[in-house]
């Protein structure tokens, strides 16, 4: 394999003190949603770190109001770091998309599990479409492109 998953670390769930209580009392509408934000942090000594934030929104008269937020940092170790240092090759893009998908899955699972302990409902999620992570991936590959520097 191209990389080894060295670990994934969650931060404690943050609750919006104003909306969490009201949500549990059933003061908001039926519909709720989750959203992801992912970032590729850095790549040092062959270790790639990806952070993901997940937010749970309740519906207040048509507006989304955040109720809970989870954050997770995941680490991927590359035996051959050069794989990610040759610009936007097909291989590098597909590896980074896979790592981002995994980092999101770690974040989602932890948030669902911790959320259910705190009476949040299970929320459906999707694998984020490539277009939503494309910019982060392309910026990362441009920044770490060693072929260009020479």
């Amino acid at each position, binding site marked *: 394999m191209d990389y080894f998953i060295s670990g994934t670390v969650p931060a404690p769930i943050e609750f919006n003190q104003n909306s969490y209580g009201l949500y549990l009392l059933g003061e908001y509408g039926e519909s709720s949603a989750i959203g992801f934000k992912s970032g590729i942090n850095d790549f040092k000594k062959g270790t790639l770190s990806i952070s993901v934030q997940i937010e749970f929104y309740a519906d207040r008269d048509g507006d989304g109001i955040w109720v809970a937020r989870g954050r997770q940092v995941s680490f991927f170790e590359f035996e051959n770091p050069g794989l990610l240092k040759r610009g936007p090759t097909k291989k590098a893009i597909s590896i980074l998309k896979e790592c981002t998908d995994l980092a999101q899955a770690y974040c989602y699972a932890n948030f669902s*599990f911790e959320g259910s302990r705190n009476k949040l409902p299970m929320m459906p999620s999707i694998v984020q479409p490539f277009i939503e992570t494309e910019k982060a991936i392309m910026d990362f590959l441009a920044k770490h492109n060693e072929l260009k520097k020479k």
Partner: protein
Amino acid sequence: MIDYPQFSIVNADNLSFDIDHSVLDRVKRKEFGRYVGISVLSRFEGFDKGLLPIVTNIKLVGLIGENQFEAVDSFYVSIFQFSDQRSILLGVNEDSVRILQKCHQLAQAHAYSIFSLLCKENGVPQSGMELTPEENSVEGIEEFLEQIALPAE
């Protein structure tokens, strides 16, 4: 194609987490040296009404020679929902294999994440994880796709 619009993820949860404290103590005393690691195995649990559940077993094991000692034995479930069921009901093809490989990989990721949290809460040392090489997962996937395939018209 690296997108997966065919399914959504509707659940990821822990089913059980059992610790054998005598083995865990031996892990902590480093009796197994570097021969400590996790084994991750997933199984498809059928396909009904558009729902695909995958159960994953994660064990933390220490090895001495050929003997395996289990410090933790734990199970997890992930459920995937398909809006267009035909994407995996038409038997073995490039797309259906690719989609189930992704579900398999995500189920293992969900399990690993909850496993890591439960280890932390229970004073069990953290472990890294290798992805299952694709060629190893394909055989089980092809067999499963044949089982659930709609009869040919």
